[in-house]
């Protein structure tokens, strides 16, 4: 790509459909960029020491002098406003993503001006009747902000996926796979003009889980834990550990005492090379404090952005970063499609059950009304009409009818979302397969 004089540069506001042309006057010094991510566990009245921990988090962020801090589970706006006030000098720019009933819980604090913010709500996020899990009320999604530092377009994403409550029988797996799919779609399709892409958050997935592989393979994002030159933190980069007094040790025992479910992922571009200089995590207890920042560990990554003379990053036009990763991508997308199909069958079955139950309730109600009219026509009826049973049964039927109607509506939406995701996956597969057919030609022309 020729970097010459350019007298037209797009305004960020009319769309970044022109790549920004840069004028290199001298070799630019690399830019250091420090990213923080933490699931704050800020469920007021439910999570322990909530207020005190937000004070600690505020102190930590003030002291660390980061470029951006990506927080999840800041469910209460008051806690966000508290942090905003406390961090107003070190992080003058912030955005709090609002969605769902109590969510999204995601907040971004930035040292650099935030030029734009956008939110993508996941189409699937649990069930409203699973009140003890509560994810549905959280309105989870993907938050995006645009930063511009020294002429570089930096796209930062924060995400929080559906929790995993039981790995052996994960009833939310299809939802999480669809969320991972939507996450990679959103990142891929909105970061075409980016020089640097950063994604931080609680993915609620292990590094080799289907959703994580789908995300990394399709977007080309790299895991800071695997790429970091220096690492200092929990063993294996765990972000949810048994040493943390807030976590349930039993659930973590099968995983060797911890799981890695929080990530900071990154990617450069043709013009900008991004390397992860270091990654660190908190290790449970915090010195000088009786308890840790949260039930999750915090991640801090330091990146180096270096301008490259020739594009040696991924071409934005290809869906996968490198052509030799395409066969693996096909397998991953197929695997994801299978999971979605499983979820679809389940949802269709649930919808069918709701419909059947509703119809039964309706039939029962009609039958009952019919029986109730019998005494009106029966002559010389001696038995007193059982009013109590009649009304109770009637109320029950009505309640069943209403509940099943709402469930039918909900399951229909779930079915649509799953079908939609499956259609997109099928389309993506055929696209990738087309690319695979063309790839021998690509490799031979070698323009990368």
């Amino acid at each position, binding site marked *: 790509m020729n970097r010459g004089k350019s007298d037209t540069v797009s305004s960020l*506001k009319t769309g970044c459909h022109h790549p920004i042309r840069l004028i290199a*006057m001298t070799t630019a010094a690399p830019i250091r960029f420090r990213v923080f991510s933490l699931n704050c566990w800020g469920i007021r009245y439910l999570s322990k020491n909530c207020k005190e921990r937000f004070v600690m988090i505020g102190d930590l962020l003030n002291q660390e002098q980061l470029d951006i801090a990506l927080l999840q589970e800041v469910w209460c706006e008051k806690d966000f406003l508290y942090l905003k006030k406390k961090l107003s000098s070190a992080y003058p720019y912030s955005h709090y993503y609002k*969605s769902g*009933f109590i969510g999204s819980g995601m907040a971004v604090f930035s040292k650099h*001006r935030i030029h734009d913010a956008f939110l993508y709500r996941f*189409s699937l996020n649990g069930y409203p009747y699973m009140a003890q899990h509560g994810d549905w009320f959280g309105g989870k999604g993907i938050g*995006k902000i645009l930063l511009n530092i020294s002429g570089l377009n930096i796209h930062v994403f924060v995400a929080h996926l559906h929790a995993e409550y039981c790995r052996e029988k994960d009833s939310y797996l299809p939802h999480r796979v669809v969320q991972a799919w939507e996450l990679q779609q959103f990142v891929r399709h909105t970061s075409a003009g980016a020089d640097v892409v950063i994604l931080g958050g609680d993915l609620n997935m292990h590094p080799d889980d289907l959703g994580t592989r789908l995300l990394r393979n399709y977007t080309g994002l790299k895991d800071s834990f695997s790429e970091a030159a220096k690492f200092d933190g929990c063993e294996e980069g765990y972000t949810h550990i048994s040493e943390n007094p807030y976590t349930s040790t039993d659930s973590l025992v099968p995983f060797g005492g911890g799981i890695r479910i929080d990530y900071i992922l990154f990617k450069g571009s043709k013009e900008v090379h991004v390397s992860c200089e270091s990654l660190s995590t908190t290790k449970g207890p915090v010195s000088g404090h009786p308890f840790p920042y949260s039930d999750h560990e915090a991640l801090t990554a330091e990146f180096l952005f270096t301008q490259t003379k020739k594009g040696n990053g991924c071409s934005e036009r290809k869906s996968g970063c490198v052509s030799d990763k395409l066969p693996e991508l096909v397998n991953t997308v197929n695997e994801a499609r299978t999971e979605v199909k499983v979820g679809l069958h389940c949802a269709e079955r649930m919808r069918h059950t709701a419909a059947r139950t509703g119809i039964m309730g309706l039939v029962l109600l009609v039958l009952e009304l019919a029986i109730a009219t019998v005494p009106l026509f029966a002559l010389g009826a001696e038995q007193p009409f059982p009013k109590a049973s009649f*009304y109770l049964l009637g109320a029950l039927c009505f309640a069943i009818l209403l509940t099943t109607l709402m469930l039918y509506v909900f399951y229909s939406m779930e079915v649509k979302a799953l079908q939609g995701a499956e259609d997109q996956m099928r389309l*993506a597969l055929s696209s990738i397969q087309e690319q695979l057919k063309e790839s021998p030609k690509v490799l031979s022309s070698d323009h990368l």
Partner: protein
Amino acid sequence: MATERPAKLRVFSLNCWGIRFFSKLCTQRYEMIGELLDREQHDIALLQEVWSEQDFLFLKKKLSSSYPHTHYFKSGVIGSGLAAFSKHRIQDALLYQYSLNGYPYMLRHGDWFGGKAVGLVILDVLGLKAHVYVTHLHAEYSRAQDEYLPHRIVQSWELLQFVRHTSCGADLVVLGGDLNMHPQDLGNRLLRSHTGLRDCYTETGTFDGCEDGHTLIANNHFTKKQDLIPFEKGIRIDYILMKGSQRVNMKCESLSTTKGSVADKPFPYSDHEALTAELALFRSEDSRQHESGNTPAVSEQMDVVTEACAVVKEGLCQTEAMRDKAMHLVFGSLLLLLLPLVLAFLPCSCSFSFSTVGLLGAVCISLLLSGALLYLLFTTHIKVLKETEDQMMLTSNDLQTKLTGCQLSGSSSSDGSPELQPRSPFKREE
């Protein structure tokens, strides 16, 4: 680069009114639409209100030779109703469902169940990357007292954000659909000024169709004249918008609409008129040829976003008031519930029959549940409105900085933000 003949792209858009068992002559009209598309051989056909998947599959089968690539966007309970038929290969598809889309209890309006959204298909058109969007916004049922205006403004905002954020790598952008807004309505101005999309109707040299480009006309067999009042002849609410890029210049060579009736047929294709645009694509090596002259002024963008923000704030107030009412309903019914409970356990309750007490109790519980559900719904809406407001404010501040930055051209910025100060050897020229 030597002048070459421009490539042509023919785009079609129609709101099909495909509400099975409800809209008239649905099956027959789909036959007609299928025949029209087959005959016309467009590059892309963007359809809205294809609510039934069976109708989509019928069209898909019928058009399998002329439009081998299709995508049907699914969302909501019965929606989204959006479908794309393409001659060119669809590389990828993405859906963004609008966060606000009416109310579930407004059954006779039904928009909520439609899961309205904006769909994106990425096409490979003659080696160029085309981002084609199809959308359908919330209907306007009463212009004088438009209770859905905040919803439609939020949808316009989300639409423009989605287009802006996903069209970076595009060589050309086309948006077709039923925006349910008149050309100078706030949402339309917001969309156009912030995306740079151009209206084919205003850009075209050749137009053949209804007067003033109307797409919902009184002359149509299916439209109700009273719905169009005070607009006697018709309204223009369906659009094909377009935008090029540094690599491609776009011009609308011609635009045509259907005119209510169809030759040899007793009824039209739909209650809406169909749009057909013929777009010319010119490869542009010289970035100066790019339509930078059409970039709306920053001050215009600021004005329109401020106006939109005001509408959202008003919607927020109204929704908060409704949420308060729902809260009152919950507490009121809780209090009222005490009455049958007390009556049930009082010794002198023999004067009140069980049925009365039971009925009262049932009514209270129903009111309690309704109140709780409405509270849940309105809280979700408030969150969306607040988020939209925050995003608009962010954009407004950003535009303000740009405006101030332009005015202080040359001098160092006073706000201290690193990207405006010429510290870096990499300068961004504006």
